[in-house]
């Protein structure tokens, strides 16, 4: 397979050949990687003999996966996305003097889906490699699960990053010491509290596995404490009962710092994965070019007057809203 847009030339043996009696359908099977078999299917006009060349009506290409490991899916989803972004490519079977010039039409949202799965699968490969876990990819990954994969990937790969914090509940015993701590909290010039939580050990469930990410500290620069007067009254009771202190960052974000998260080994990936990772820049360029061209086509060849009208915003008259201020 020759994919000029990506500078890819892949060669592999035809491991299996299947066909119907009248050659309406001919399927070539070829291993592109351990666990990933490409199936090239030719849909032909019926043929009755060896002397008659195949009259190909249609060609399809798909991958059959031997397992559901993150690595296997990463390779498969990368290949599907590449075929969607590649434009013209060639698949040749020299022994049969067969050379097919193809251009696969895959809808943009489908290509995006393959690429977003590739991101998640790479995240799982990083987490798996750092934590010594081999993840199986389920048929569906929920939004929460995707969020956990992304969070753990950031903890391992970035160590320090901004992430969503909607609310933190700090169970606090009503003691003199805690009352003193509470009274000493200062409101910063920006009108909020600056608070730190942790370090504390963090374990995230990911695809049915408990993944330990080490010690996490969260820094919040714009904290709002709910009902501070009521909390102070409760803490002042000094009877040891637990007072839940609810803290919300105004921005709904906090800086997460991981000092001892699991680490990737020095050279985590073998050659094939390195080659697939290295496609990232070309993938990004081809994907962006595709959308940039589509956006530009929405104003192609218009006159200045048409451009003026096409880009104008709907306007209301001055007295459109009669509600008084």
């Amino acid at each position, binding site marked *: 397979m020759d994919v000029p847009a990506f500078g890819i030339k892949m060669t592999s043996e035809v491991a299996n050949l299947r066909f119907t009696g009248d050659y309406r359908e001919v399927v070539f099977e070829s291993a592109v990687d351990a666990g990933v078999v490409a199936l090239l299917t030719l849909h032909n006009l019926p043929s009755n003999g060896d002397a008659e060349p195949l009259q190909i009506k249609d060609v399809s290409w798909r991958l059959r996966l031997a397992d559901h490991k993150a690595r296997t899916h990463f390779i498969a989803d990368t290949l599907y996305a590449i075929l969607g972004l590649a434009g013209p490519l060639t698949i040749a079977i020299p022994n049969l003097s067969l050379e097919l010039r193809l251009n696969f039409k895959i*809808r943009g*949202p489908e290509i*995006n889906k393959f*690429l*977003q799965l*590739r*991101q*998640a699968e*790479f*995240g799982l490969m990083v987490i798996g490699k750092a934590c010594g876990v081999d993840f199986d990819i389920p048929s569906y990954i929920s939004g929460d699960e*995707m*969020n956990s*994969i*992304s969070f753990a*990937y*950031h903890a391992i*790969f970035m160590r320090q*990053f*901004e*992430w*969503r914090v*909607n609310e933190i509940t700090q169970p606090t015993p009503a003691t003199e010491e805690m009352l003193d701590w509470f009274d000493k909290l200062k409101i910063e010039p920006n009108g909020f509290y600056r608070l730190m939580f942790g370090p504390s050990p963090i374990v995230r469930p990911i695809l049915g596995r408990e993944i330990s990410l080490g010690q996490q500290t969260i820094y919040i620069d714009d904290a709002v404490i709910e009902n501070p007067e009521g909390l102070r009254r409760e803490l002042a009771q000094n009877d040891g009962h637990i007072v839940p202190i609810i803290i919300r960052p*105004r*921005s*709904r974000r906090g800086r997460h710092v991981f000092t001892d998260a699991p680490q990737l080994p020095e050279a985590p990936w073998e050659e094939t994965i390195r080659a697939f*990772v*290295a496609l*990232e*820049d070309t993938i*990004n*360029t081809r*994907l*962006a070019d595709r*959308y*940039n061209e*589509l*956006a*530009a*086509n*929405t*104003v*192609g*060849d*218009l006159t200045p*007057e*048409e451009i003026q*009208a*096409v*880009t*104008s*915003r*709907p306007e*209301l*008259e*001055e007295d*459109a*809203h009669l*509600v*008084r*201020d």
Partner: protein
Amino acid sequence: MAIGPHSPDVVAALDNDVLNDWRFRRPATITAITNYISLIKAPPALTSTTIFEMVHGFEKAAILAGGMNERLARDLRYAHTLIEECAILPFNAEAAAIAGYVFPRLTQKERNRLWADVFIAATVVAHEYGIATRNRGDFELIAKHIPPDYQPLRIEVWK
């Protein structure tokens, strides 16, 4: 090279001005959108109000030209393809409630000028997206009035 999953808090929708800059290939906007696509692996989202504005532009042009000529019709088809390819954030009940909270807190002049932006801002907040805009000031004005139990409007200036 960071090719793994992104943070959920980086997704953004385009306001009308940035969408137009994108359509006219303004270099700074192309750079911002290319960076976004590299991270998210999809184009920025559009709100239903932004789609209303885009389609309104074509229909207005057609009326002024005495009918939908071939060029306008072709570009409108491309616009519909773009709409199909982008994530669409609908103006749903939550967005409507947010807009309903913001709208009466603006002056009449602001309402007349910013009504579409109020709908856009309310939509992105309802869907937990940010807004990519050229007009930080307009969206900051709206952001001041977002109901306090929602996350603040995340404003990204792409120009």
